[in-house]
């Protein structure tokens, strides 16, 4: 029973990872790629770790997988924030379909 639940969680996670990787290939500029990839891949890997937690139950490995979820979450969101800020300061323009840029006058 636990094995079935863990397989279902892992399958959902890999589906989300697949959507994130399609986003990283298909979207037109850096900001949108980072946006799609960070959300999908973070939730996908959290789902895989939750599946691992269900598979091992209440033991050392299960608790370890559960502890890894908040670490992964904070690491990936803060990393994405630092990366998108660095991209803007590096001088990459927003894509040609973008319509608004409030950050430009705040930086100067």
């Amino acid at each position, binding site marked *: 029973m636990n*094995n079935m639940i*863990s*397989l279902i969680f*892992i*399958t959902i*996670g*890999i589906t989300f*990872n*697949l959507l*994130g*990787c399609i986003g*990283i*290939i298909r979207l037109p500029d*850096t900001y949108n*790629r*980072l946006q799609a*990839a*960070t959300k999908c*891949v*973070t939730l*996908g*890997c959290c789902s*895989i*770790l939750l*599946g*691992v937690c269900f*598979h*091992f139950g209440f*033991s*050392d*490995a299960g608790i*370890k*997988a559960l*502890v*890894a979820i908040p*670490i*992964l979450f904070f*690491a*990936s969101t*803060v*990393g*994405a924030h*630092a*990366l998108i*800020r*660095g*991209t803007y*300061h*590096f001088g*990459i323009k927003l894509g040609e379909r973008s319509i608004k840029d409030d950050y430009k006058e705040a930086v100067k």
Partner: protein
Amino acid sequence: MSDYLNILLYVQIGLSVICLYRIIRGPTIPDRMVGVDIFGILVVGVCAIISIQTERSFILDIGIAWIILSFIGTLTLAKYLTGKKLNE
């Protein structure tokens, strides 16, 4: 059951290869760095699936250490992109 887990493991490794495509092909430097960041997160999923297959728990430790190292690497690369020195 075990075969199905094998298939899932190969799919996850294939997704990492898609990220490698973005690292090799990406037109600008930030694109490559996005690829590196996402690659680091995907490897954690690979570690988790291998820990189910082998029933060993130390591979999850490798995963946690990989998260933290990839986080520090991403922060360093982002610092490089903003054009500052590393001690500011």
